């Protein structure tokens, strides 16, 4: 069996997640021992046909992008959603809170009506085509990404935690942000980042999206204990997960 042929595709996003792949630097050499990159617009000029693994970054915002994504799905054996924008819409979905015309008016003013500025509701990748594997984070963590690639290459189901960030945060012995009277989304957010933000003195803002069954009602009820309002909490939850049903109390 030859090396799996891998292609990377981007949709609406900051391209920070594919940048993380470039950030592997020396490990890129190890990576290409395991897989064969065949298409990657940001780094190479080649185009490929049939592929084993399609890595898709970004949210889907326009009809033409849905079409492009469906074509990618057809060409790919395995489709991997890379990063928050792809796995659950990420910050892009904040846009869905405002009616499109208003968003266009805010950003493009009087020129908003121009046809190429049209954009539909923001969607995560799985809302358009079936997704085989999600790699969470904004941006993804390269250590996690490279581990998952190795696990896939070794033929095993990648380990993706379904426990909250608090687990990793505790293991790193951080002072809990709630002790500073801050709202931290760690208790409802999927781990895997090694509690990067709390370890850097910042609350968790939920970029990896919720665990399978977040106890969101607890989060709402607990706010009073910290002198916070539900509005404060919702403001935080919305940043990366405004499209998630599971975060609504």
């Amino acid at each position: 069996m030859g090396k799996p042929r891998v292609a990377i595709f981007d949709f609406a996003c900051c391209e920070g997640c594919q940048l993380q792949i470039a950030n592997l630097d020396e490990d890129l050499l190890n990576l290409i021992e395991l897989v064969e990159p065949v298409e990657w617009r940001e780094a190479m000029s080649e185009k490929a046909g049939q592929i084993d693994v399609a890595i898709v970054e970004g949210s889907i915002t326009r009809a033409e992008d849905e079409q492009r994504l469906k074509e990618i799905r057809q060409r790919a054996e395995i489709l991997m959603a890379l990063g928050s924008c792809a796995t659950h819409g990420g910050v892009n979905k904040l846009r869905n809170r405002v009616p499109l015309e208003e968003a266009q008016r805010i950003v493009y003013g009087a020129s908003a009506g121009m046809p190429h500025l049209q954009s539909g509701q923001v969607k995560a990748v799985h809302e358009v085509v079936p997704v085989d594997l999600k790699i969470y984070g904004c941006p993804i963590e390269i250590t996690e990404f490279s581990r998952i690639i190795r696990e896939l290459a070794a033929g095993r189901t990648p380990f993706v935690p379904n426990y909250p960030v608090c687990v990793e945060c505790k293991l790193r012995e951080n002072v809990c942000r709630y002790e500073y009277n801050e709202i931290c989304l760690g208790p409802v957010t999927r781990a895997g980042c090694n509690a990067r933000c709390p370890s850097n003195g910042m609350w968790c803002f939920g970029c990896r999206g919720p665990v399978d069954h977040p106890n969101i009602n607890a989060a709402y009820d607990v706010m009073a204990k910290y002198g916070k309002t539900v509005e404060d909490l919702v403001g935080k939850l919305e940043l990366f997960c405004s499209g998630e049903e599971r975060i609504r109390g």
Partner: protein
Amino acid sequence: MAETVNIQVDHITRVEGHGNIVLRARDGHIEKLEWQVPEAPRFFEAMVKGRSWQDIQTVVSRICGICSVSHSLAALKAVEAAFGMEIPPQMQRLRLLCHYGEQLESHSLHLGYLVAPDLLGQKSVLPLIESHPDLVRAVMKAHSTGNRWMEVIGGRMTHPVRLKVGGFTKLPTEEELVSLRTLLEECLPALEVMADALHDLADRLPDFRRETEYVALVRPGEYTFYEGHIGSTDTEETVPPAQFEKVANEYVSPQSTAKWARWHRESYMVGALARFNLNGEYLLPRAAATASKLGLEKGNCNPYWNNIAQMVECVQVVEDGIRLIDALLEEGLDEQSRTVPVTPRDGEGAAAVEAPRGILFHRYRFDSRGFCIGANMCIPTNQNHANIQKDFEKLVPEILDRDQEEIRLMLEMLVRAYDPCISCSTHYLDVTFV
């Protein structure tokens, strides 16, 4: 001479974001020549509306993965301006240090992974691993140094977490600064390898000139990235960041989702070459030596040479980074000044920083509780789009007699020279500020 030239590059590769090149010419007559930006619009200005001041940086950092530190810094400075805050000088210097890491990371990525393949006649960096292993290793060294640098100061390679309104959420330890300093020292030889390679390949950069206006931050006596006023090669007058709209007159072009900008002329250029043309005399010794070795002089108006200016800046930021670290270690990090308290208030603030690709502006307005009621961001690549188009219009007639493939490559290389960051350029100046 090709009778008809028909070039349609959909989604030019090896640039960040989506851009198209269209050229149709018949019998030496250009029918259509366009630099198009079809990137999906993302509406960040709408996204930050209604968000708390605490979350602005987190959101706008996501405008661009490659210049997330620049966006973060522009946002923090603008929010702090709106709330009338003073940031302690040491924290300003730490921020600058983080900002330098991004310049190195972005420039080395661009030069090594995106431009080098053009100069060496390849489609990607992959074949270079075999053919030019030393160069590739040097690029990886420089690139990973930039990343590690941002991680040490900002807490992450992309989308920094420690930068916050009022200062930092956490400071690096002195040991971390010491080992960062070692990394930077070790990076200098790698930069030399890159500069030598660029020196040998410089004659493959097309010989093309077009006078234009160059715009960048200026500050007396400094090759500045983080502070200063807006300067131009067309005028002695400088404009404070708070009035950036005077400079970046943006308009929507039918050929792009991103916006275009003009100031004294119909277009201007921002980025490494602009910074060099305005501030070149303030380079530190090593960087200045690199510039003269590569033959870069003030007044250069070959946009392809933006790549050379980026190389010079890599040396500059590492050199100044070492100097900054020495100063910080000398005075000791002051945990007391890590952060100043924030009192949100009804107000408006704007700021400018030099992103790797050029000058970047942010403006926000807040209500009395510190919720954002209006925002505007003006991104370097937007400011360059019109200039790219104008370059196209001068360049194509000069080369129309060449082979179609060669024309295509030269146009692509021109676009790449600007290192356009299209994903962040899809924003629009909201002239009627909401």
